[in-house]
């Protein structure tokens, strides 16, 4: 167990290490999470990226990163991390570079890669107990191509390829946890203190570490960018996105919303769920979504007792 240094909001770094002027959308919840993560991680790292919105962070000849970057492909950023991690280890082992030249290896992908196409290469990094951090900005759809349904799309969402999506969001957190990696956490940019504590913890550990950041997406979820943080906070208050971590073999919820706001407060701010309210309320679906959340938290609370 590691000792958290950041305990209060006032202790959050205000270094703003990630450069500005990127082509991400106004109100991008992925970018706000990345800004906060980068401030805690620092710059001594190489980001290994898969195809997604954030591929456009580094467009020749500009980059907002003060550290290094390698773009791979949609499916295999974790395998790129494997190659870089192994190469740095070999270089240090064979004394061809000084240990100070070492860097953290960080995978950065969207949910399309993390929940779907990239699962194969991700699984291998867990098999190999690879020493790296995986950051997934999860905006619950293939955002960069216009928000088509992805394996992270939630039930009932409208995307550009589904009206009222009948499936359910894949539980990536549990897939990781089932394979006993070093660390898994969910974070959100709208809860910066919780995020910073988790990144700080992850940074001090070794082995495969996964950070799933819910990425409020004005373009894909259809809301005004100014509501981004509010929607993020509602994702936590309604319990639709549980903040939790897996460490030392246990799952711990880091924010338990004891008086949960009804989920419709979260849903009705987003155009992708408008059909649940207009032209008339879809009571059946709203009740089902609420019931799933209630069941989840009842189990969390009963497990605690």
């Amino acid at each position, binding site marked *: 167990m590691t000792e958290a240094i950041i305990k209060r909001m006032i202790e959050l770094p205000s270094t703003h290490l990630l450069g500005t002027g990127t082509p991400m959308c106004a109100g991008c919840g992925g970018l706000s999470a990345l800004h906060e993560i980068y401030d805690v991680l620092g*710059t*001594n790292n*190489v980001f*290994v990226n898969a195809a997604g919105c954030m*591929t*456009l962070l*580094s*467009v*020749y000849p500009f*980059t907002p*990163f*003060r*550290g*290094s*970057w*390698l*773009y*791979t*492909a949609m*499916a*295999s950023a*974790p*395998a*790129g*991390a*494997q*190659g*870089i991690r*192994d*190469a*740095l*280890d*070999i*270089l240090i082992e*064979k004394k*061809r*570079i000084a240990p*100070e*030249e*070492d*860097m953290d290896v960080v995978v950065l992908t969207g949910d399309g890669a993390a929940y779907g196409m990239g699962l*194969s*290469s991700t*699984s*291998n990094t867990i*098999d*190999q107990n690879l020493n790296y951090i995986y950051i997934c900005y999860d905006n619950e759809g293939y955002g960069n191509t216009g928000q088509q349904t992805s394996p992270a799309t939630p039930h009932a969402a409208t995307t550009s390829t589904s009206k009222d999506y009948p499936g359910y969001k894949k539980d990536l957190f549990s897939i990781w946890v089932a394979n006993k990696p070093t660390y898994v956490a969910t974070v959100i940019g709208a809860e910066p203190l919780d995020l910073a504590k988790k990144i700080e913890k992850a940074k001090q550990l070794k082995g495969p570490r996964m950070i799933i950041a819910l990425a409020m997406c004005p373009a894909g979820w259809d809301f005004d960018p100014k509501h981004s943080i509010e929607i993020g906070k509602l994702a936590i208050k309604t319990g639709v996105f549980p903040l939790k971590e897996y460490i030392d073999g246990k799952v711990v919820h880091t924010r338990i919303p004891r008086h949960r706001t009804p989920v419709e407060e979260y849903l009705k701010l987003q155009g992708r769920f408008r059909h649940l309210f207009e032209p008339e309320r879809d009571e059946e679906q709203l009740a089902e979504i609420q019931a799933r959340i209630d069941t989840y938290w009842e189990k969390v609370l009963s497990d605690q007792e």
Partner: protein
Amino acid sequence: MTRQLITGNGAAAWGARLANVDYVPAFPITPQTEIIETISRWVDSDQMNARMVTLESEHSMITAAGAAATTGIRVFTATSSQGLLYGMEMIYTVAGWRAPFVMVNVSRGLAAPITLESDHNDIMAARDCGFLQIHCMTCQDVLDNVLIAYRLAEHHDVRLPVFVNLDGFYLSFTREPVSIPDSKEAFAYVGDYDPENIRFRASSPESQAVAVLGGSPYSYFRYETHLANMNGLRVYDEITTEFAERFGRNYAPVETYHCDDADYVFFMTGSFSTKAKEAVDRLRDADWQIGLVQLRMMRPYPEQMLKTTLAGKKAVAVIDQNISMGKGGVLHQELTSVLYGDHDAPAIVASFIGGLGGRDISSEEFYQIAKVLKQAVSDNKTPAPRLLYTETEMREFKKLQAIAHVERDDLGSHKKRTGA
């Protein structure tokens, strides 16, 4: 130096060992697997100071290989057939990264139908990606050209990954006497890996393989890769000259056999070209003015050398062990494209396709091809492309087909009887 009987796969593994590689990302596939098993044994017994890691697919394996090379270490990997195609996205990608490493491909036919045996459709599918391609004819060729490939890949004027291709079964599992260079002499030839400006270091942050916006920067980087690939011909000449001085064996992008005074020429690549050599000997015994051109370097394509070698010949038979569906043999297309318009180019460049999925090309077929060439010259007419298949084969295949029909009909009547 020792001389041993080893397989083509063994020769490839020896090449990696003598090149002092640091890292071997791997994934098994027939007929390549013996290469990674051999290397794994050597790594485990400390005969190789390398790290080997098994990835979960060729797509990941090639990503890891490229990423490690761009971090600044010497990398070796190997695949075959379906594996090469599964990783094809990354084959193009890592060439664009300008990641210099060596990848052995053990040629095997592509599905469907699925087969384990050899032809060249797999490696031909990777013609246009940016990798350089060396095609081997013997097991000695394999070992020597893996060493040469590191010099080629890492050369300042190239900086690209290189394929060394050998035929599945015919070379991969065939033992031939191979001279294995002394490790010190091999290291002296290959040298240490200099990552130059392609590396990741804490003290000098680098963004590699970033996106571009617009066709102009995209074109710049693509042209640059093409031109670097083209430099490979000059560099291959330099480094094979040095190889010959050190080890006494000569390699050229194009090899010739009884070609100087020949009117007719077989044109081939890979291990089957050694069968053509035998056919040339027998035809020469019968007073044919015939020779053989073996293409060793497929990329960059030795255009000028081929023009010169074939100038003044009466007819060329291009024998392709691949088939570009809807067009024909790839070697034939490429050769005719460079000969076209030269006033002293052979008037007849005929296409023959054979040796697919491990099928042999017999001496009789080479003799028949020679006769077709002679007839074409006397008719002054290029013959239509031929797909080699004998009457005996057709008869045997019809038998298989008859059995398949009986089996299907049996199954159908069984289902009817039981109402299943």
